[in-house]
């Protein structure tokens, strides 16, 4: 069975190679090849899953050692895969949602002449992401980590003819580099501390290592997670990443890649457990991002950017849960999976709306679309109910558990974190209701553009609606299936460990409080947007609204502090380089040249001078030899 693991990665990798090297002759069939290989990965994943379910909970992990990558004495890097319950969860999510989005893209990208290349990149992403979650050591994980970064870059900038897309891709790449540096430093620290970077030995050895070193490693891992998962302070790229085609936003920037940071923290759980200070930082990052993303999501009129703010916020929940330690790991992953379903569904819905609205993204120019695209309305609506945590739907179960766990952290911290999580739930309900109302309810607000083309909203083709329907099922039922009878908990517990948290108030109270804030949030949105006509041009808004529209000034902050500061730094370095370094170098060269010119004059061509020099030389030689004896 373990020999199948490599095939999980190999199938999409083969697709990427074939599609990217195959050239134009594959244009007609490229999307089918890409989709088939993604589905192939999913089927293998299901086979392995069924096999795994047949085994005893403690012995489910499979290992596959492919080859020795860099065998140097004392530095052993292997290409080896590990498939345990945590990896299995991700494999199914990635290949499952990935396959659906491949299908969706067949319709969505139908009129794009570079569709083959798009599928090549998607396959490349799948291969890299699967390698990331299947690696049995941090170095191979890093390969996947960089691979998904590359795929993300290529796909965000897929419509490279748009300057905004090219810039967004570059921005995502650069910000991610900061996080990647964190991961590479963490790996180096691991190597110097433990002498290896395989998961098993590293995580077992945490007991014998000083807390300071572990805290350093953990903080570097957190930096990596912040970059990849768009957490404060490396969150600024995610909003711009929405320049990519919508299936990309759904797959990479909502369901899978951006959750890699959560995977990294949960996978490295032992390190974080042994470094409580780092854990505290993780929870703070999660809590701050949770509010940050939610506030940004409230102010955006661009449907995809509103959803991007929501993604950021929901990953904030996961990071918060991961930072809580063993009481939160399982719930972080559970929310990750349910979020994968409903957020991918919401994005596909948004893509479907855009498809019918001539790629218009401004929600102020939508309105009343429920009658024009009923399937999209229903699936999007179910995703909406799931994300706000409507009782019985996926988000209800997974988010509720995280809020409980946050309170269960105990002490003042527990109250603060729990309060933030509750507040986040209220804001989530508010902004999602706003999106829902602006898009599907109210008057129709679209108008002909300057060329006189009026959008004719229509339902999308079947290749697009079917994935949306499938994901809607996931949005509705996944949470219930996971939570009832603690199935997901028992499934994941052997890998991540689990400790039952004890909230200071009863679980029922927390659930009720969640319901109350949900109603308050949604109700406020309804009052604001459902009962009044929507202005087509955005009002000026309050100071907070304006700041939130500008992503809470994140880019301004980066520009002033980092870009300007960096420019000053490089300018002064260039100055030092020009004056000091070049001065020393050129000065040395000049003085050598001068010395050479002087010494050269000794070579005057007269044999007599040469003889004198030899005579002097031998005299010194003898004198020096005698002197050596004397001393």
């Amino acid at each position, binding site marked *: 069975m373990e020999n199948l693991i490599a095939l999980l990665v190999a199938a999409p990798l083969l697709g990427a190679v074939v599609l990217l090297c195959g050239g134009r002759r594959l244009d007609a069939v490229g999307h089918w090849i890409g989709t088939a290989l993604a589905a192939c990965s999913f089927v293998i994943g299901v086979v392995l899953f069924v096999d795994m379910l047949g085994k005893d909970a403690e012995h489910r992990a499979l290992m596959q050692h492919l080859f020795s990558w860099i065998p140097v004495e004392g530095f052993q890097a292997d290409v080896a895969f590990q498939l345990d319950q945590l990896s299995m969860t991700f494999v199914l999510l990635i290949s499952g949602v990935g396959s659906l989005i491949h299908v969706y893209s067949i319709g969505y990208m139908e009129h794009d002449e570079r569709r083959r290349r798009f599928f090549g990149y998607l396959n490349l992403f799948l291969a890299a992401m699967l390698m990331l979650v299947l690696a049995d050591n941090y170095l191979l994980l890093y390969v996947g980590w960089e691979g998904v970064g590359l795929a993300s870059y290529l796909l965000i900038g897929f419509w490279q003819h748009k300057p905004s897309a090219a810039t967004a891709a570059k921005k995502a790449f650069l910000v991610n580099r900061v996080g990647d540096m964190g991961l590479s430093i963490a790996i180096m620290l691991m190597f110097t501390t433990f002498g290896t970077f395989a998961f098993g030995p590293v995580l077992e050895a945490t007991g014998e290592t000083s807390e300071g070193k572990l805290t350093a490693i953990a903080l570097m891992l957190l930096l990596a997670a912040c970059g990849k998962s768009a957490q404060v302070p490396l969150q600024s790229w995610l909003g711009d990443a929405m320049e990519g085609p919508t299936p990309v936003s759904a797959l990479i920037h909502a369901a899978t890649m951006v959750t890699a940071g959560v995977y990294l923290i949960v996978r490295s759980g032992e390190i974080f457990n042994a470094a409580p200070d780092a854990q505290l930082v993780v929870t703070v990052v999660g809590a701050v991002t949770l509010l940050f993303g939610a506030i940004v999501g409230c102010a955006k009129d661009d449907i995809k950017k509103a959803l991007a703010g929501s993604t950021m916020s929901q990953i904030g929940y996961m990071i918060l849960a991961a930072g809580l330690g063993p009481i939160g790991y399982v719930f972080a992953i559970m929310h990750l999976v349910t979020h994968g379903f409903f957020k991918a569904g919401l994005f596909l819905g948004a893509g479907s709306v855009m498809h019918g609205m001539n790629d218009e993204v401004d929600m102020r120019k939508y309105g009343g679309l429920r009658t024009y695209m009923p399937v999209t309305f229903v699936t999007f609506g179910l995703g909406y109910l799931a994300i706000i945590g409507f009782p019985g739907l996926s988000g209800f179960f997974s988010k509720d558990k995280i809020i409980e766990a946050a309170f269960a952290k105990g002490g003042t911290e527990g109250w603060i974190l729990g309060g933030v999580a509750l507040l986040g739930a209220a804001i989530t309900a508010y902004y999602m209701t706003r999106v829902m109302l602006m898009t599907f309810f109210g008057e129709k607000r679209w108008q002909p553009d300057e060329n006189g083309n009026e959008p004719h909203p229509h339902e999308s083709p079947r290749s697009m609606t079917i994935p949306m329907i499938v994901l809607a099922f996931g949005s509705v039922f996944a949470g219930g299936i996971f939570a009832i009878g603690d199935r997901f908990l028992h499934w994941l517990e052997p890998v991540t460990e689990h400790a039952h948290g004890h909230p200071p108030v009863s679980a029922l109270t927390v659930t009720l409080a969640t319901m109350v804030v949900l109603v308050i949030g949604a109700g406020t949105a309804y009052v604001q947007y459902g009962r009044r006509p929507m202005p087509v041009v955005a009002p000026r808004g309050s100071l907070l609204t304006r700041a939130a529209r500008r992503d809470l000034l994140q880019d301004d902050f980066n520009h002033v502090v980092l870009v300007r500061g960096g420019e000053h730094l490089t300018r002064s370095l260039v100055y030092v380089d020009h004056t000091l370094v070049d001065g020393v170098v050129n000065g040395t*060269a000049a003085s*050598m*040249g001068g*010395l*050479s*010119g002087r*010494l*050269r004059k*000794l*070579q005057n*061509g007269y*044999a007599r*001078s*040469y*003889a004198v*020099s*030899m005579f*002097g*030389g*031998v005299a*010194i*030689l*003898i004198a*020096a*030899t*005698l002197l*050596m*004896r004397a001393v």
Partner: protein
Amino acid sequence: MSASAVHSLWTTAADPISKIDAPKIEYGQLSPTLIVIGAAIVGILVEAFVPRKSRYYVQMFVSVVALTAAFAAVVGLATSGYGTTKAGIAAMGAIAVDGPALFLQGTILLAGLVGLFTFAERRLDPEAHGNRVDSFAAQAASVPGSDSEQAAVKAGFTTTEVFPLLLFAIGGMLIFPSANDLLTLFVALEVFSLPLYLLCALARRKRLMSQEAAVKYFLLGAFASAFTLFGIALLYGYAGSVSYGTIAQVVDGTVKDVNPALADTMGNDVLLLIGAAMIVMGLLFKVGAVPFHMWTPDVYQGAPTPVTGFMAAATKVAAFGALLRLLYVVLPGLRWDWRPVMMGIAVVTMLGGAVVAITQTDIKRLLAYSSIAHAGFILAGVIAMTPDGVSSVLFYLGAYSFVTIGAFAVVTLVRDAGGEATHLSKWAGLGRRSPLVAAVFAVFLLAFAGIPLTSGFAGKFAVFKAAAEGGAGTLVVVGVISSAIAAFFYIRVIVLMFFSEPRPDGPTVAVPSPLTMTAIGVGVAVTVVLGVAPQYFLDLANQAGVFVR
């Protein structure tokens, strides 16, 4: 001889005949030298008896056969264990047959063979009156610019005497590193020096410069020889013997017999120190170490380029071999005295050669200063005083000699109306006109600079490693600094060749015969092979690294 022995010579004169043993000569072990010297004598007879037209071919044949046979003899001796287990002293104590001797003899013979090919090249110079000519004067005895010179050129004369001269020089060089007493050392020195002085004077073009170089070389060489000879006399006074083994015993204080005639001076350390310094000075002159290097640039520039190439390679091998034997066999007991002094010389040699090379404008002078710097690097390995020191020097010498011959062979190809175009400004843009030749030269320059994947790197790494392990870390630091300085002017030539505009009056690159091509090809091959896979040859040098005493 003791006093009683002298007395018995007088009283028992009745049966002396049977007491005098014929000297025992191990012809087999001496065969490489005997073959080469014998062939040189045959070469002289060829000059006397063979018609002028066919001399060139006969001389070529004799020389190639002799060098090949001598190399085969060296290989035969080495494979039958004379380099290791059967190493010993032959010819009544005059010649050592051991690992270093055989390794160096093999290197000299191969370098000589490759050098011979460049001597024999006859396609580079334009034909003079329908006769193919080589790099050597038509008639050495004719005054430059005179009518007799004109007549000799018109008649198509060539100086085929260069072949026996080359063989004599090689013969002397074969003895030099294996000499096991001071007199043999001196004789060998003169045997290889005198032909070289003559060869330097034989350039076909720029004859006055060539003759000037030869006279300078001869005068200064004679001057240095005088010091050497004086040093030998002092050492004899000190030890009562010229044999390496005996002198070493006296230095160590383990000598048994004391010569009564020298009882006053024997063991006087002042004689030892001064004598040793003078002999070492003679050897340092031959390797071109600062401050005995002043002849090098002038002679390298004036001599016919094939001679320069051969001399730069083979003289260095022979002289370093002799220096190694002297320091490792005769004077190891004195190393606390000579090591600091030699370190000083190595430092000024490395730095001096590298620094002065920066401002050179003539490619042959540039290579001359580069050879001085390399002499400094090799000295660093000599000073290590460890077995690794010996083997690293052996390896370096082997690697360096083929690069040198190849580089000078390339210099012979770049020509304009006045013969070889050696001024650096004329080499501008060579890479655009003749990419292959320029690329080959670039390979040699990179090897000189010690860039990895060339033999120069492997050699430099070996000597620096040996020096560091032998406790001469300072030398390594200086060595690396001067390598950095040296890299500047090597790379500058590469930049000049590939990144400058060619000059309209620039030189042409002559198409050589297979002879020079072989010389260059061997140079490139050795450079790359020793650079990429040096281990086999390092092992070989390691096995050959033990001197017999």
